[in-house]
């Protein structure tokens, strides 16, 4: 957990974004996932490993098969802090509106 990967790094790769897109619809086995890609099975499992390390993907054992699914909460987390960041800018700009109108009045 200490060497947590950067989430932006995780979703910067097109193959990993495609994996997220696939398992967002339904959970999938490693074999079913690999069929969607031209790369080797090892390459796909390496991508999954990175996504798992970022807590974006979880795996569940169902009988003899492993299923990968998306951690929806983790994805929401990203959106939540981006929304906070947006609010900071909104506040900042409202303050700037006030400063600008004060300066304009002083000039008149």
């Amino acid at each position, binding site marked *: 957990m200490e060497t947590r990967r950067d989430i932006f790094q995780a979703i910067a790769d097109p193959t990993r974004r495609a994996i997220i897109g696939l398992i967002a619809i339904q959970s999938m086995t490693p074999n079913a996932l690999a069929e969607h890609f031209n790369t080797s099975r090892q390459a796909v499992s390496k991508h999954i490993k990175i996504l798992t390390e970022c807590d974006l993907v979880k795996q569940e054992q169902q009988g003899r098969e492993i299923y990968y699914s998306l951690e929806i909460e983790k994805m929401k987390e990203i959106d939540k802090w981006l929304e906070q960041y947006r609010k900071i*800018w909104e506040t900042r700009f409202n303050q700037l509106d006030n400063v600008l109108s004060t300066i304009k009045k002083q000039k008149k």
Partner: protein
Amino acid sequence: MNKELLFDFTVDKPAKTVFINREFDAGLSLVWDAFTKAEILDQWIAPKPMTSKTKYQDFKVGGKRFYAMISPEGQERWAIQEYTSITPKTNFKMYNAFADKDENPELPGSEWDHTFSEQNGPDGHRVTKVSITIYNESLERLERVLDGFTQGMKMSLSNLENLLATLSQK
């Protein structure tokens, strides 16, 4: 805020870039000054109840602004901006990094690009549009930016709630 003025905020996560567009009900020269002169910047850049103070600013290519965001408790968070490109009243770019109080930067920082253009507003008076892009090398850094603000934001929201409650009683 004037509802007719544009404000959009989008994030391209894979590209690690934030895009911000905002229009202001003022002419180009004034808005340019508001983004480039420390004495005006300090009046609006820190979301209340935080405040901003600039120790020094040298607005030229290669020049710097060394400033702090100060929490209501008096805690100072220093940062350095280095201007990397300036086209007067059109565009400026800078590199922003957190720092300690002795001006030692903590890398990586973020790359900022500001573009200014004057347009005609709805009723014919001048409106200035500012487009900002911010490139962050790491998500963790952006999270740190947020951590610093979250407390201040919570306080200002509760101030607003109190104000609204007072107003609605009247």
